């Protein structure tokens, strides 16, 4: 199918060149169909995000190409991303949408990963935040009471040691909380269900899930929010999340409890995985050897899209009040975020082993 539309595209292009040379100089011709690979199943977070962005892309790209979403689930997004790495055409026809679970295995040296990010350019990165909350029966009414949690065992429904919860585990440990991870939750939603059943004493949700599902619990006194993970500002500093401006960040809570700023390898690891998993929660990539005029056209259109009031309005609902990162900024921050030094890697590897008996 791909080849078919490519052939079609090529023939249109060549006919177009012959007939109207002057017209071509004005605007870059994009393929009439763009295949957007989503390495996750239908209905999941990344899929819904892509399906929400797709019509806006169509609207803002030159020639209004059809954006077709190709779901290729498997291996927690590794399978589809590997395939994209092998097969994607660099004529602007193929783009990729990723999530934290695409970046983490790469950073942790998963042996199934056959992609690397040098060959791709990020076009757009959508950040997200996250909130940690606890059961009200623990007697905690805000992060100020965090000392009350000392010595209390807190079961936490989690997906896996190397998933999106990785930085959250690090934060818990730095705060000295006695977390008892219960793995095997198939989604963060299942983790929240365990919390609602009272099985889990502490839980964590990304911004949109917190707003849509956990806030109800908070308003009904069934959950107490402790802190947010905060967001990275332009200077790479972690500041309060605009979606939860009244909640302290992890750093503030840490300072309050210990009277100093968090530091050391553990905090470096936390910041790395926070940046990769949350600041770059969803990224659109394009193969780097795509002709530069096509990449430019994409970048221009995406900037245009970000200013489009219709997009902004939808984005508030679907993603939250976060600023998307585009252009060179995105590329630079991303490569910083996913580079793990050998020293840090050794530390994480031994931490996962000692904490979860998990071998990298």
């Amino acid at each position, binding site marked *: *199918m*791909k*080849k*078919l539309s490519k*052939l*079609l595209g090529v023939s249109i292009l060549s006919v177009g060149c012959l007939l109207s040379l002057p017209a071509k100089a004005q605007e870059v011709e994009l393929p009439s169909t763009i295949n957007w690979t989503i390495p996750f*199943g*239908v*209905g*999941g977070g990344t*899929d*819904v995000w892509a*399906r*929400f962005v797709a*019509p806006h892309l169509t609207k803002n790209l030159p020639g209004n190409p059809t954006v*077709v*979403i*190709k*779901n*290729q*689930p*498997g*291996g927690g997004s590794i*399978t589809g991303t590997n395939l994209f790495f092998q097969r994607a055409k660099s004529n602007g026809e193929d783009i990729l949408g990723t999530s934290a679970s695409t970046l983490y295995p790469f950073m942790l040296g998963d042996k*199934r990963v056959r992609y690397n990010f040098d060959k791709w350019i990020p076009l757009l990165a959508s950040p997200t935040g996250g909130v940690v909350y606890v059961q009200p029966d623990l007697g905690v009414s805000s992060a100020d009471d965090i000392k009350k949690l000392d010595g209390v065992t807190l*079961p936490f*429904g989690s997906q*896996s*040691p*190397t998933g999106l919860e990785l930085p959250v585990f690090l934060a818990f440990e730095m705060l000295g909380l006695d977390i*008892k991870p*219960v*793995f*095997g939750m198939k*989604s963060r*939603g*299942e983790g*929240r*269900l*365990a919390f*609602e*059943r009272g*099985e*889990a004493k502490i839980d964590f949700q990304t911004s949109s*899930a917190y707003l*849509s*599902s956990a806030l*109800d619990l908070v308003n009904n006194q069934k959950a107490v929010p402790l802190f947010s993970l905060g967001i990275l500002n332009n200077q790479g500093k972690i500041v309060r999340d605009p979606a939860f401006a009244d909640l302290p960040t992890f750093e503030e809570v840490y300072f309050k409890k210990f009277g100093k700023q968090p530091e050391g390898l553990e905090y470096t690891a936390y910041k790395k995985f926070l940046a990769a998993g949350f600041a770059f929660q969803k990224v659109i990539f394009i193969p780097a050897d795509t002709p530069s005029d096509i990449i430019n056209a994409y970048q221009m259109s995406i900037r245009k899209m970000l200013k489009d009031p219709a997009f902004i309005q939808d984005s508030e*609902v*679907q993603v939250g009040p976060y600023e998307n990162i585009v252009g060179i900024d995105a590329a630079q921050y991303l490569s910083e975020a996913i580079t793990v030094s050998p020293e840090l890697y050794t530390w994480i590897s031994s931490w996962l082993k000692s904490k*979860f*008996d*998990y*071998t990298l």
Partner: protein
Amino acid sequence: MIEFLSALDQILSITHLTYLIAGVLVGLVVGIIPGLGGIAGMSLLLPFLYGMEPSVGLGMLMGLVAVIPTGDTFTSVLMGIPGSSSSQATVMDGFPLAKKGQAARALSAAFLSSMIGGVVGAIVLSVFILVARPVVLAFSSAELFMLTLLGLSVVAALSGGNVYKGLAACGFGLLIGAIGGAPATGEFRFTMDIDYLYDGIPLVVVGLGIFALPEIISLLVKNSAIASSPNKLGHGLRQGFKDVFANLPLVGKSSIFGSLIGAIPGLGGSVVDWMTYSFAINSSKDSSQFGKGDIRGVIAPESANNACASGSMIPTILFGVPGSGAAAVFLGGMLLLGIQPGVSMISTHLDLTYTIIWSLALANILGALFCICFTRPISLLTYIKFSVLTPIILTLILFAAYQATRSLGDFIFLGVVAALGVMMKGANWPRPAFLIGFVLSSGAENYFFQSIQFYGYEWFLRPGVIAIAALIIVGFVLPPILKRRKQKMKPEPLAQDKEQNSMANTVSWTDWGIIAVMGGSATYALINIWDASTLTKAFPIIAITIVLFSIVMIVSKYIREKHTKVSSDLAMNMVYIVGFFAIAYGYYLFGFISTTFVFSFLFLKYLAKASYVQSTAIAIGLVVFLVTMGRVMNVDFPEGLFDPYLLSTIKSFI
């Protein structure tokens, strides 16, 4: 109440009805074509969905999701291919009925049961959703574990005369299901460094391999029509309806059971059909015809699977946790329409919830009516000589398997599982037991560890756990035992029992082959897993123990009691399995569409001895079907060497 009626008013508007019917039609197509599932339907409806009025969009989505378990009955009954994971049990008796020439009867009974099941599910949903929240929350990991045990206990009823064969098959299913990431630690097991195995073998591939391919191969060996004995087709349709009305209590029980199981997130719809199937066996006085074409074996799972699809809306709408694959698609659609699941769906958005429920009921009725209209003409297919249908069915199976992960591994493991399936079919080992073990494997392991971690070892004292344990014993374990005892008490055993007894005491090389495969795999697995961490290896070791113990019991029985040796005539079947591998690789290497054309034509012309016109027509028909699927539903095929050229040629003709 006002919301309830205003929602009815709403769905009866022309706009709403039009979109609902569109959704139903797409859902039927998606259901009829095996392996597609909601994904393909979603990509077809999505361009319309965006920016739609939420209630209309929800109606359309509901139409799609609700009728998938209705449409999938066609291939289950007519070809022995489970159209989706929720109609695997339908194959057990549906296909034998088709073989008896009663396809129309089986189908019409199935559609009517689906309709009733769906409507009952909608009624249960409309009442239950208002109070469901605490009930759903009462099902903790401990109760969910007990429910997986409830599912597993079904094996007792399904293993026919030989409990140890059933146990061995079930244990082997549990072991195969343990391939991939361990839920409690995230570590990978038994992957043998094959990327494909990291996610485990997909259910679609296992289902097709264990049921569909062995049936097809045995029909090919016989080379007759599917319907081997002619039947008065004229009575088929009406007979099916009569069967349903004669078994209304079964329909009712299965529907209510199905919708309640669907309402509990985590268990999924893929076992509810087996549960109700064994329920039908246990509750019937004469269960000798099950598996050979008993209409109750169609009615029970078909009532349950539509009801289950309705029930699975409860966790989806209330908690945003989808209970099944189709529900996940529906949830994605809800989010795209800008509707957030949660408590607000029964407070501020109650009208939307009732729109969903009314659409659900209406879609079930419409879907079943559409299907019933097509039943007569389509069931005539079973009278065609089977070899003519073979290329079509094989293409459908490969198509379905490839949709699982879109890699060569889908074909390879389909063949591997099919080899096991052929042996199990040949030596009369209970294949459903294997499948149930496979389906419930990850749930059983996951919920077991979760309940220990959340509650310690006191979890089995929870009232819910005790209640389900009682249900297991009363509902599933006792009936087969009592029944057997009753049969033994009878002074004069029926002729059938005698036959069964003599059947039970046979042994063939195929039996030894299965024992060798299972024993060998289990031993390999044991050595392989020995050094892993405790939480990673505990569950596989339980599965391995079940397999090895049952095998020892079977073998010792062979030694202790006298068994008649029967010859195994599987040589021909195995030739077909090898042939399957060759052909499947051809589909992958040369291109799916090109190979479909060439293979179908050659097979029909030279093996099935069809005419040139017939062969060409079927081959071209298949290509048109595949190209259309590719274009309309964005389905991918292996491109191989020739497909790109073929497609560009086709393009130049259009």
